[in-house]
């Protein structure tokens, strides 16, 4: 049972991982992440990269929706902006991947700020619906411009790192996972400072926040911009990972996927967006396994897609009704139980 952790200074109190046990687990976790690619097979490496990309994007959406309270169904559109920017730059300019990813993030950020402009006049559900409009508009733009290759999209050469082509999951792992970890760290840091606090204040009571000195429009736009930056970078990584970008790569359903991920994981917590993204990415794989085991496996592949859709919807509904604070809350309950054992929670 953990009694408590006494701190000697305010700086210590503000640390992200403040107990020795947490630091040990963190160290083990990082070591595991480093060791993983050497022991995993191609399939698991592929999954790990996909999970990392989803975690990065979910983290961005969490900043906007979970912490600032601005519901957005446009995350896929911003990822698309990032992906297309990277694709165009890679195919037409051949610039290094670092620059491309940064550019992808910045272009998506610009898009995010534009989409956020109505957020002062329009709130809650209405804002969510206007982000759907943004999604639709983005899809239209991607399909109808020569620059973006129209409906057939663009395909990319692998990213080059000092002459090594990043064309396998193993190699891409070392690009994607550290970036995702850095992005998570950035988000965690954000909420130790005045900017993060301002975001939460906007979510909880935006009118009072304004009277307390927070300029609403500026911070809402900042939140939109930051979350779409994250989405843009995630989209760029997506482009390098799949190496084909088409207008159908980032449909509205993908935005719904990310919103579901942060709901299932637990909105407003970093742990939540990690758990949610991991869970939602693994569920279809798990379903594939289950359906494969069932006796009538001839029809199995036919039912896989609709079953996946049903499970997806059911998860959203189920978590919202029964566990609105998501997997993170379930995790916290388990932790509390062990912290307080042998006392009851």
């Amino acid at each position, binding site marked *: 049972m953990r009694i408590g952790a006494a701190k000697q200074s305010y700086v210590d109190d503000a640390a992200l991982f403040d107990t020795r046990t947490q630091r040990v687990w963190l160290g083990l976790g990082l070591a595991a992440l480093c060791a993983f690619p050497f022991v995993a097979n191609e399939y698991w490496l592929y999954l790990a990269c996909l999970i990392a990309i989803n975690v990065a994007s979910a983290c961005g959406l969490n900043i906007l929706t979970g912490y600032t309270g601005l519901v957005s169904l446009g995350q896929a559109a911003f990822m698309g902006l990032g992906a297309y920017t990277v694709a165009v730059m890679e195919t037409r300019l051949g610039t290094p991947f670092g620059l491309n990813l940064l550019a992808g993030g910045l272009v998506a950020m610009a898009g995010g700020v534009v989409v956020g402009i109505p957020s002062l006049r329009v709130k809650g559900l209405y804002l969510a619906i206007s982000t759907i409009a943004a999604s639709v*508009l983005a899809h239209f733009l991607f399909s109808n411009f020569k620059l973006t290759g129209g409906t057939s999209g663009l395909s990319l050469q692998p990213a080059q790192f000092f002459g090594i082509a990043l064309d396998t999951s193993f190699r891409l792992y070392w690009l994607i996972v550290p970036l995702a970890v850095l992005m998570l760290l950035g988000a965690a840091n954000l909420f130790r400072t005045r900017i993060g606090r301002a975001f939460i204040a906007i979510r909880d009571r935006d009118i009072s926040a304004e009277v307390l000195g927070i300029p609403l429009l500026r911070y809402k736009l900042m939140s939109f911009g930051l979350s779409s930056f994250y989405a843009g970078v995630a989209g760029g990584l997506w482009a390098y990972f799949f190496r084909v970008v088409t207008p159908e790569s980032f449909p509205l359903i993908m935005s719904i996927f990310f919103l579901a991920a942060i709901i299932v994981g637990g909105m407003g917590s970093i742990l939540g967006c990690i758990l949610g993204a991991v869970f939602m990415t693994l569920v279809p794989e798990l379903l594939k396994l289950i359906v494969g085991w069932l006796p009538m496996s001839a029809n199995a592949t036919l039912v896989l897609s609709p079953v996946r859709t049903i499970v997806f*919807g059911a998860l959203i509904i189920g978590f919202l*009704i029964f566990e609105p604070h998501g997997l993170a809350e379930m995790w916290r309950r388990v932790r509390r139980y062990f912290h307080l054992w042998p006392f009851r929670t």
Partner: protein
Amino acid sequence: MSEGFDWLFFFEISLAGLGSGGLLALAGLALVIIYKATRVVNLAIGEMLMMSAYLFFALTASMNLPVWVAIVGTILSSGVLGALIERSMIRPMLGESPISTFMVTVGLSSVLVGLVELIWTADPRRLPEFMPTDPVLLGPAMVAPKVFYGFLISAALIAVVLGVFRFWRGGVALRATASDQAAAYSMGINVPRVFSLSWTVAAMIAAVAGIVVGAIGGISSTMGVFGLSTLVVVIVGGLDSVVGALLGGLLVGLVEAWAGAYLGGEYKVIATFSLLLLVLLVRPYGLFGTHDIERL
């Protein structure tokens, strides 16, 4: 054409737009009823419409029932489905934030699409013909028969629903619950029953719209996208305004038809959503919606 603007074409396109606008108005009415009674924006309205169309398909094509029996059967079973949805998914969310309930309807739309694909596969189907097939002439202009009759059905049903809500006790109860749930409860109105009723009625209205939409364009598992246009309709008209849904429906129908004809099919969705953005920026609560005032 060598002389000026082709007015006949414009007129025909506009008529077609009004025709589809009638269906949008019908679906919009269903959405407004749900919003007025339960304060929920039901993004799954398009999928509920789709489900009804498929139920109709099942009753006519698979079970070979006569069309009129199938229509009644579809409407009734859709009503039951609506009540079921409300009881199992919406009622538990009472008191939660509107965003959460909105997300539940998003989840619901996924579940419905999946169910349809599971039972009937994702291939598009055609519904059996049950409407007169002769082209309809309004003056010099020609209107596709299904669109014309679809509009008539929509208009008739809307008139019936409006009349019922104005003169029936249940309608008054609905309006009372819509303004103030707690007060309605204290007045002896059975608020939970009003909730169920609103979803049942809305589902039945959507069922009619679904049958007609399916009859016009065939049915498929992507039919639910009609729901996005319906959402635009109620945002433009005002989430809690019946008049807004009607006028909004006609407006969106016209805008889509004009965009489709003069700009090209792929511009339809853009036109609709541009209208949405315009309304959101200029009159966020819709043309006829009520403004929620926030107190400090």
